[in-house]
Every structure is written in C-alpha cells, then in structure tokens.
C-alpha cells in the first residue's frame, strides 16, 4: 500500500444554510496527480482551499503527510488562477519571497536558477504587470517550486490562458512533475485538461459538492488526444460532468 500524502475524511463545509461540500472522502498517494473536476459551484475550489488550510472544514478532517491541516503551510504550495503575484515585487523578489522568509542565504541564486529553468531568464528585474499571462503563471509556479513543496495545489491555474499557452503550460507542468514527483491536486473544469494531466480524475457533483465518481486514467504518457482510447475516456467523463451541469442549469432557472 503506497503511502498517503493526503487523506480527506468525511469533509463537509457549510456557509450558513448552503452546503458547499458534503462527506467528501478521498485519499491521494505520494507523487500522484489528481484532478478535481466539476461544473462551477461544485465546491472544488472550496475543497482545495480547505486542503491549503485557508479555511477549516465544518465537519470531518484533512490530513497532509499524516498531520492534520490547521493552517497554510509552504509544504502545500498553492498556485492560484489569478496568479496572485505580488505586483510591488519584481519577478525575482516574488520567486525568492518564500526562501527569504526561511532565511535562505542563497535565495537570490536559487530564484535565478528557477527563472532559467522556467524560461524566464532576463525577466528577474521586471514587475509582474510587464509579463504576459503565461509568463506570470510560470513565475507563480517558480515561486512554489522554490520551496521544494512536496505537494502542489493548483486552482484552475491555466484557466485564464489562451489555448496554445495553456497547452505548453500543461506540458511544462508534466515535465516538472515527472522530474520532481510532487503530489499534485489540480482543480479544473476542463475535461480534456484533466485527462491530459491526471492519474485519477475526481468528478464532483453540483451542490452539495460530493465525489460523484473517481475515474482512473490508465492512458500511457505522453498522452495523445487523437487516440481512440483518449476519446473513449473523454466521452465517459463528459457524460458524468454533463449530468451535473444539467442539474446546475435547472437550479439556476428555478
């Protein structure tokens, strides 16, 4: 039995009368790449925020590497959809931020090495406003990688990017993951994206958010959308997601 990196046990989350999450159970093993997939409003970001420790679930518990999650920790590094780069810091200062807090004397050198690795050489002294969306998200990724986090939490990180940039960022992420073998929990509403990336896809239900089905993606890597196996998996998951999407739309009409 592989060692669990993340254990989610009976997690529920209420905001007043709204039940955002209900009895979620999920175990993620070390080095596994898991996607949380569902329509907007299914609580996938809520669950990710709870895993990050930004919020506490109203019931159940979350354990990361055997310890209960009580607050945000650099070991569970978060990549936000909106990048959340500090606009008042240069790119280099952003990447070095976590290292400086730790008191790392080589923060600057390590930050520069990461900028090189993520094809951002020469942009260290720029401010985030001068960068394109794809570059900003690479800086955000570098900022998390700088801390050698064993777990990456990614909240629709490529959602704001154009299709081509998204595709190259997905490849980049897979390369990094193959090299460093972090545990990744990746929130998306893109079915294709989840199939390109994940070992397992957790399809969530719409309000209350629960686990509808966990689909293991057995396709070999690198994955190719043009294969019949990929298409079959795509159809199967699309079926599941559309059921929830329909419930969501009915809900909005009433």
């Amino acid at each position, binding site marked *: 039995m592989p060692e669990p990196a993340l254990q989610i046990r009976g997690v529920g989350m209420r905001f007043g009368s709204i039940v955002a999450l209900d009895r979620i159970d999920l175990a993620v093993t070390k080095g596994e790449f898991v996607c949380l997939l569902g329509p907007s409003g299914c609580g996938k970001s809520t669950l990710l925020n709870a895993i990050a420790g930004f919020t506490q679930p109203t019931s159940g518990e979350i354990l990361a590497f055997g310890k209960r999650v009580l607050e945000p920790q650099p070991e569970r590094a978060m990549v936000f959809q909106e990048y959340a780069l500090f*606009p*008042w*810091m240069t790119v280099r200062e952003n990447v070095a931020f976590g290292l400086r807090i730790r008191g790392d004397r080589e923060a600057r050198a390590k930050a520069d090495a990461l900028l090189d690795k993520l094809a951002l050489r020469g942009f260290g002294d720029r401010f*985030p*406003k001068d960068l394109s969306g794809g570059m900003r998200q690479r800086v955000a990724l570098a900022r998390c990688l700088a801390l050698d986090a064993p777990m990456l939490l990614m909240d629709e990180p490529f959602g704001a990017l154009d299709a081509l940039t998204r595709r190259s960022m997905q490849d980049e992420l897979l390369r990094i993951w193959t090299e460093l073998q972090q545990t990744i929990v990746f929130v998306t509403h893109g079915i294709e994206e989840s199939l390109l990336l994940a070992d397992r896809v957790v399809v969530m239900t719409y309000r209350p958010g629960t686990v509808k089905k966990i689909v293991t993606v057995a396709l070999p890597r690198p994955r190719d959308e043009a294969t019949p196996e990929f298409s079959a998996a795509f159809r199967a998951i699309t079926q599941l997601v559309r059921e929830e999407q329909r419930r969501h739309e009915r809900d909005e009409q009433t």
Partner: protein
Amino acid sequence: MKALRSTAVIAAALLCWEAVCRLGHVSPAILPPPSQVAGKWWEYLVTGELPRDAVATLLRVGVGFVIGAGLALPLGLWMGARDRIYELFNPIVQLLRPIPPIAYIPLAILWFGLGNPPAFFLISLGAFFPVLMNTIAGVRSVDAIYVRAAQNLGARSGTLFWRVLFPGAMPSILAGLRVGIGVAFIVVIVAEMIAVNSGLGYRILEAREYFWSDKILAGMVSIGVIGLAIDTVMARINGRLLRWHRGLGNA
C-alpha cells in the same frame, strides 16, 4: 501642440484682463492690469521679501505636515490592519473628520496663543485626516489573495504586514499624502492670515491694509506657483515609488 494651445488660452486670458484694465473700465485699485502685477511681483522677489515669505510658509507646511502625517500614518496602518482597532477608533474619527481645520482656529489661538504653534497645530490637523483615511482604506483594500499567497509561502504577521499589506496599500497612502500636503498648504495660508506675521498668507492680508491690490495679486500668484510645485514634486515621488503599479498616469 497641446502645450501650445493651452499656453495660448493663458495668454488670451491675460490679454483680456490687460485690455479691460487699459480701457479704463475698472479702477487699478480694484483690479490692476497683469503687467502691473508682474512688475510688483518682480519687486517683491528682488527685495528678498518674497523668498523670505515663501521659506517661512514652506517651513510651516513642512513641520505641520510631518507632524500630521507622522501621526496619521501609523494610526492608519494599525486601524487598517486590525479590525478591532478599526472598530474602536472609527466612530471618533468619523465624528472629528467633517470639522474643517479652519473651524479649529479659535481653539488653536486659545490653546497656543499667537505665532507658530497654533499654525503648526492647524496645518497638522489639515494633513492628518486625508492621510489617515487613505491609509486605512489602502490597507483594508489589499486583495485577500495576496495575504493568502503570502501565508501559503510561510509569511507570518510581521512579514505579512511589512511586505504585503504595507506595499499593497502604498498607492492609496501616497494619494493620501498628496492630498494631505495640498490641504496643509491651504491651511497654512489661512493660519498665516490670523496667527502670525510672516509668510505669504500674512503678506497678502497686509497688502490689503494698504490697498495694494497689485501686491495681493502678486502674492496670490506666488502661492499658486508654489502649490503647483509642491504637487508636481509629490506626483514625481509617487511615480517613482509606484513603478510597479498598473495603469499609472503621472497626473
């Protein structure tokens, strides 16, 4: 081209003014022509009276502004960062804020007599509230996502404050400082008319006693030029400090 057109507007206004005076429609005692005002201004300058007055005024603005902003900034940061402190102080701030600094003049004279102390008091009061309100608003409006990102990267309260909340609030703080020094400059003129016998404000009131309308106007022009200079310097400083800021007009 733009600069040329706006200069033309100014020149036309001056010409109209000059013409109205020359045609004898108004008494020069009421409204002297701009040429006479310019002459007086030159005299005011070369006798050394204007530089002395300007220095006196600027010193008062400087001291008052440093006191007012120096008190408002830490209080604003504290109130912005801590909800409990905000709730504690906000009602009294809201009560005192609408009272114009000018309304404190009788009290200022009663407390501090005449001379610089009441002027410092009034000027610092004028600078205090704009800086305070903008600092509070600036800290409170820092996007929560930056706080989350910083916490996630391991930042705790000290780092969070100095490296996230404070720089995040900086655009608003600087805007507050700019408004604050503008108000301080308004208040200094009033204070000089009432409490002291030097400075630009005193000088134009003194000129009225002798019906020197040209000197009144020369003094007013000087006040305008210095006010513009202060604001331009502040705008430059803002631009320099906010290089990172998106959509920064240097206006």
